[in-house]
Each structure stands twice: as C-alpha cells, then as structure tokens.
C-alpha cells in the first residue's frame, strides 16, 4: 500500500493517508492537518458533526503506528485557527506518542509558540536536513530538494466516455515535492502537471503513479 521513491539517494515511502516516511532518518513528514477546524466552525455557530473531530487523531494514530518513526515533522497548518478546546485533545495525543514531534509553521499556525514549547513541540520557520529543505510554502532553492505543503494538491484525470476524476496527490517536480493535505475536512486545489513532473495520486488505499 505504500509506494517507495528515491530522491538524492535517499529512500522515501509515500503513504496513502498523505504522509511521507524518510527511511534513513526515520522521519515522518505530514502536512496541512488543520486540527481544530471542526471546533472552530462550531464555535462560530456552524454545526459540523462533532464526531468528525476525532477522525484526524485516528488517522494520525494509524500512520504513526505503521511507520513507528523516531521523529514526526508537521509541515505547517497543523492548527486551523486560534486556540480552542481541541488543543486539549492534541496535548493528550502528543503525550501518548513516543516519537519526537516538530513543527515547521504555516500561515494558519497562529497559536503562540509558547503553547507548543510547553508540550515539548519545537517550532521552526524552516528546516534544512542535509540537502533537503522542509518548509510550508513551496519554494525552490539552489542545491536543495524541498518538501512542502500549503497547496493541498489534486490532479484531474480524464478518460474515454467523458470520464473525469479529481484526486488528492503527491506532486513532485525536479526540485520539490508537495504533500497532500493530511486532514479530513480540508479541500483540494487542482494542479496541472508539466512534462517533467511526477504525480502520485491517492486512490482509496493505494498510491497510483499517474
């Protein structure tokens, strides 16, 4: 169900839930979870089903169990909004997870860094590990390969009989790889692949290279 790829002589596994596992570093990359979105909506009077709020944690548990990583790095937009009661759920989750957790902050991450530090989650604007750059916003930098999020990429497929499909995907160019949004209850944005780009679509429990 995972799909292996190699970038700059390093081995990576793409997971259909939307995470990437860096084997040499035992590092799990996850982007755009948008925790707290359900609670945020409810606080403003939109009655999104409350049960939906637990789904993200179930999915996080599933992917963490699968890889058992040494470290987990969130590539931004971990929280959708300002502090709400969902923070407590996150705090519990962090406490029970054996892996180390770090956050590269994104445009939605407006919760004070102190709150994160209190629960042992360091925050960075960006991270450079060997010749890899981890950021929230897509960016191509000389000599580095970027892992990022922000876009919530999707791809549109067309077939015979006027068939059309839109699927979330991992979107890889020569110098960067954009992760799909991990979170439930987040939208997608269709990207048009160029010739040299590689697209890995998420199809139920599989990754299909388009």
């Amino acid at each position, binding site marked *: 169900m995972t799909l292996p790829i190699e970038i700059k002589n390093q081995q990576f596994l793409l997971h259909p839930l939307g995470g990437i596992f860096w084997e040499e570093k035992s590092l799990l990359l996850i982007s755009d979870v948008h925790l707290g979105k359900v*609670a945020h909506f*409810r*606080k*403003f*009077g*939109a*009655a*999104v*089903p*409350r*049960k*939906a709020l637990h*789904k993200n944690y179930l999915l996080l548990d599933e992917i963490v169990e699968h890889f058992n990583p040494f470290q987990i790095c969130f590539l931004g937009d971990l929280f959708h909004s300002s502090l*709400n*009661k*969902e923070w*407590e*759920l996150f705090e519990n989750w962090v406490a029970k997870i054996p892996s180390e957790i770090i956050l590269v902050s994104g445009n939605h991450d407006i919760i004070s860094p102190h709150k994160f530090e209190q629960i042992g989650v360091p925050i960075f604007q960006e991270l450079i590990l060997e010749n890899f750059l981890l950021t929230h916003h897509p960016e191509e930098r000389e000599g580095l390969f970027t892992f990022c999020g922000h876009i919530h990429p999707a791809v549109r*497929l*067309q*077939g*015979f*009989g*006027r*068939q*059309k*499909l839109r*699927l979330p995907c991992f979107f890889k160019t020569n110098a960067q790889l954009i992760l799909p949004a991990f979170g*439930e*209850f*987040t*939208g997608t944005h269709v990207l048009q692949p160029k010739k040299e780009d590689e697209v890995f*679509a998420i*199809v*139920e429990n*599989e990754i*299909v290279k*388009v």
Partner: protein
Amino acid sequence: MTQKELFHIAKDWFHQQSWKPFPFQKETWKAFLQGKHGLLNAPTGSGKTYALWFPIVLDYIKRHPNYKTKHKKGLKAIWITPLRALSQEIKQSAERVTQDLETQMTVGIRTGDTSTKERARQKTTMPDLLITTPESLQLLLSSKGYAKVFQDCSAIVVDEWHELLGTKRGVQMELGLSRLKTVCENLRIWGISATIGNLEQAREVLLGPTSEALQNSILVRANLNKKITVRSIIPEKMETFPWRGHLGLHLLEEVVPIINKSKTTLLFTNTRSQCEIWFQKILEKHPEYAGEIAMHHGSINKETRIWVEEAIRNESLKAVVCTSSLDLGVDFAPVETVIQIGGPKGVARFLQRAGRSGHRPGKESVIYFLPTHAMELIEASALQVAVKDNAVEDRIPYLNSYDVLVQYLTTLAVSDGFYPEEIFSEIKQTFCYQGITENEWQWLLNFLVMGSQSLKTYDEYKKVEVEPDGKFKVNNKGIAMRHRFQIGTIVGDATITVRYQKGGYIGSIEEYFISKLTAGDVFTFAGRNLEFIRIKGMQAHVWNSTKRTNKVPSWMGGRLSFSAQMSKLLREELYTAELEFKKQSQEIKSLEPMFNKQREESIVPQPGEFLIETFKSRDGYHHIFYPFEGRGVHEAMSSLLSYRIGLLEPITCSLAFNDYGFEMLSDKPIDIQAVIDNNLFTTEYMLADLQKSLNSNEMARRKFRDIAVISGMVFTGYPEKGVKMKHLQSSSQLLFDVFRDFEPDNLMFQQAFTETFEHQLEEGRLRMALERIATQEIVWKACTNATPFSFPIITDRLREKLSNEKLADRIKRMTKILTK
C-alpha cells in the same frame, strides 16, 4: 360608513378613469370588506392590484371616518412581491388610490435596494402601506420589537403566489404568515396567483390547512377568457434545419416580418445568454432597428430595465428581446405580438407570456413559437393542444423543510427570542410543517442550542441560548449579524458586478464566467462588446471594445422539466408521425425529412414501443433510451437503470437527459440484451434501488449544498467582501462527506435525499412511467451513427456521473489512455 357607500367611492374613482370595475374586482372588494381571507386567481396586467389596494384603503376609511383630516400613523397593510423590480410599479398604483381618495396614507418600499437611511426612518415610523419581499419580511422579524410594529397591520397580500409556491421562499412566507397571524390583532391574508393546476391547494398552503383562516376564505377567479392563438414558425427547408442547438438563429429572418407588422413585439428567450445573442444578431443583420429594439434581463442594471419598461409603455420601441424578467408584473398595453424562442418548458409559463399581448379585454392574444431545433417542432405541436385544453402544471409545495425552519427559529431568536410551545403550535398550522412530530421539533431545538443531540464538556458550540425562563435567544452580536446577512432561501452562484473602469454600473455576471477571463478578453454583455481589464474585490472592470467576439456569459439557472400532462401530449404528437400525411399537424408534416432520416437506422416509436439506440463514437459508447417522460423522470430513470446495470457488471458512465430521453455514455459497451433479459425496468424494489443509486451520484450532494447554506451550517461570507463562493461550494461538499460518515441521521442531511426524491426525481411519476414501459415492446436498434432523435441529447454537456467500479480499476484504465 356602509359597504354601499364605500363601494360608491370605488366605483366613482373607476368612473373618473373611464373604467368599469371587473366582476372579479367587485367580488374581491366585497369579500375583503366582509373580513374574509382569500386567493385571487388573476393574470398579470388584469387590474389585480386595484382588486386589493382598494378594499385595503376602503377598510381604513371605514374605520376612520374623518380620514381626510386626521391621519393615524403606523403600518396597516403589507404587500409581498417576489421581485423587488416590481415594487415601484405596485407603489405607483397604491399611491394613485390613496391620493385620489384624499386619504393621508403613506406608501413605502423596503427591499434589498432600500437605503440604510430610509430603513432607519421606517424603523421610527412605518409607512401605512409597505411593499416588500419575502426576505425583507423575515429581516423585519429579526429586528427587536417587531411585534409592536405589526400589531395594527390588518392585511397582507402575497402577490404572484404561484411563483413562490413550490419554492423555499414559499415556505419562508408560510412561516412569516404563521407568526403574523398571532402578532397582528386583526389580519386578513390574501394571495394573488396566475392559473396553475392546483389552485385550491395554493389557497390551503397560503392560509394553513387546518386554520380558521381557511374556513373563512374564498377563491376568486378572474375568468377573463382570453382567446390565445399559437402559431409555429416553420422552417422552409427542413433539410438544412439543425438537429440540435438552443439558439434558434436560423430562423432570425422569419422574425423580421413579424416585428415589422406589429407595434411592439416581445421576444422571450429562455436564458440570459440567449437573450444577449439574439439582441446582438438582430442588430447585426438589421442595423436599421438601431434605437428601436432593446434588451431586458435580470442582470442588466435597474435604470436600463426601468427605461425599457417605460419605452414599451409609450410605444417607442419596435421590439424587446427579454427573458422571464418580463414574465411578471408590469402592464404593457401596447404589446401586440409575442414570440417565444425555444421550448418554454411549461404550459403555465407559455400562457402567461402569450397573455402579454393583446391586453385589451376580448382581444385575442397571438404567440409565435420559434423552434431552436427540429425536435422542438413536436413540442410546438403539443403546445397547441395544451393551450387549447388549458393543461397547466401543478406547483408542488415543499413539506418538512427543516433548513428553512432552523433559519426561521434563529431569526426569531435574534430579535426578541421565542418560547418553543408558542411557536410549535403556530408552525403546526402551516402546510409545510403540518406533519412535524414532537420528536423532530425537539431535535431541531437541540440542534439550535447544542449543534447536536447531546452536550459534551469540551464542545464550544455557540448559537442560540436558553434563558432561565425558557426563552430561546441569540445574545452574541456576531452570530446575530452573520445570521441577518444570511437570511434567504435562494442559494445561487456568486455574482460579480461589471463596471466601466471610469465608473458606471453595467450589470452583474456569475463569478464562474468572469473567473475564466484573462485581461484583454472581449465578451458581449448588456448588448455591448466589453474588454475585461481586471477584477477588484467583487467588481470586474471593463471598457468598451470594437473587437468582435463570440464569448457570451452563461447563467446556469435551473433547467425545467416537462409536466406529466405535457409529456403525454408530446408522446401523442410524436405518434402522429406514422399517421396519414393529411391527418398530421403542420409541424409534424414539416418534420418529414427528419423522420425519414431517423427511420434509416432506427424507428419513430409508436404507442406500443419503447426505443433504445446504441452506437459508438469518438466520445465513447452511447446508449440512448427514449421514454418521452420529461427531464425529471429521465434523470431518475437513468440513475436507477445505471445502478441496476452496475449490479450485472461494474460500470462507470456519464448521464445526459432532455425531455425526450436519456443517454448513458460509457467507456465500454453495455449489454442491452442483458438489460432486457433481466427486466431492469421493473417497478419492484424501485425505491430501494433508487435510494442506493443516489449514493453514487451527485444529486443529493447538490441539494445538500442549499440546505447547508439555508440552515446556517455554512457561512457564505459578507457581501462585497470578496469571500469567494467557491469556498462555500467546496466546504459544503466536504460537509456532505462529513455528515455521511459521522451523522447520517441528521435531519437536514436526510432532507437532502427526501428533496431529491420528491422535487427532483418525481418518484411517483417514475413509477407510472415504468409501468407504462412494462406494457411496451422494447425495440433495440444498434446504429452506426447518431440519429436525429439522439443528437440533442448526446451533445448536452451538462452531465451527471455515476460509477460503482473500484476507483483503482478506473484509474488504471484512464492512465492507460493518458499514456497511450
């Protein structure tokens, strides 16, 4: 003052205008003054406004004998109009009465167009007579102390009730009336409706099925008995007439002599883009009309529209190309001729448009029907019969629209708060909520307060609060403000206003169209060629261009379906194709070349036959079925059938439908013999199968989008702040999935499915159609090419998708094609 004296005042006034009151007007006056409620069935332009303004004013005179010298302030009557564009017109007729009778009554308008200054003024002193829309009435109910404002209101008139009935605006109106019945001390409720199939029911919905008001009410029919003649414009050379299309420009030259012959001609088109194109093309081909023809549709700015309406009245225009924007209101005596371009999709609407011409009593109305493609000539022929038999459609009212109720309850909570027992007994009296149970009511109250059915400590849901004495109230200013912005039941695509860069409003266009333009693109709008410069906020800036273009904004708009009667008439007309030539109607005769072409590879079905055609093209494998039952039924049948076929073998197909039949387009052939052998058209398990088929397509999803907005689960953003509608779309899409996965028993999620069944798919009609097919012989024709019958269907781009294949399997096939 006695009734006789009051009548005398009215008749005197009519005499001064050298008019004579119609019997229906006198009957309405009498009933109103007796304190009755009622429904007046009268067409547009028949003097219906005077039928009700008069008794309202007379009633005031009766109760205030010194009305000429003394004026008692405060709201006395409300006039509801579905289109705010009509309010000016209604105000003028009201003022004529109040002024000529020397009362000191004031008349005011309150709609979305009313300035904040004017609204504030109205808050301190309401006009005596208020003209407003259903939405603005709800907004009044959301302001503090509304009960006092309405207290002395003695009459409410709901104009064009047929337009509201069968929509959620109608439900909103029912709820508003249920409140006013309690709040106003002595209220009379009147509706005005054009002819529809279910007039009696229309009265019941307006007044409440078990209400005292219904007991004490009357149905007044104007019975003006106008003679209507339908003439089809038949192409001279059928061989070159197109098989598909929706514009009808081939027959443009045929229209010219008709325009020349009469004083003023209205050309009704079905869409705004069609309207733009026709206007443009007439001028292009006949520049001599410049200044003598105009265009009228809902997206053009108000001033232009008013100018056009004035110009029709003073006979300075030769022709006006318009859309349904001229269906309602506005009395145009000088209109002599009406041309309908393309199928009107409804007998009631067709009659209403025909009634636009020859307004003088006893004068015959002539309407020309211009077909846009060959198959529409069959429709033209069927319409002739329909008009003769007055076979008008029903408007089906909504039941249990929980979304509108949630919005209404929030509205009441925003203003003065409400006590559930009081409101429950009020809404139980309405037609829409007559069947609501105590359990459902409790569910809705929980939903308002907790956003779910049970309380959880970490939950911060906030909307309506329950105060210690049991009053439901919104105390949060932000919630109240967002709610007021969102009152209404029309959920459309976001519109963007189009302006010249130097200022000057031109009109509004759907965001969808504008988003596809890049700077420098030229498009046609409001009869001008405009070059797109940029988007700024919710405005598109343009300047005039001399470049030619074929880009015309399209407005999505709902597509209407044929009624059961109309579909039957259509089938009967089609069957006459096999009759002796001389027994055929003019239209059917003219179609001879097309029928011959159809017979080359297929047949023209007869009463005992059900036709299926298949063929392959570059697009895929086409399978076309012809029940001739109207769009709605075809939508349901195609969904049902593809679900059942999928049980035999997984398939993915795209569905298209029109009023004649439906198509299943697939990337592999469907075994039609298996469809026939397995009796897939059976009515057995129809409902269950239909329900399952809905899970795999988009219909319920789309219904849910509206429900989510109306019930306030999705916020559409503040006007003019540039919050894009796309955001709403995708977030209500996501919301649908979230509900499906986590709260499938949510009443409003369920409502999406019920509405799809009852209002879109017309489940009852589907069953009858299947029963009819069961008696027919299925004729399957494997063709090599598209037939004339199939052409308009297979070229339709608006499609439904359906699949029960494993996604991964589909994608593997698709990628194979991509990489080939």
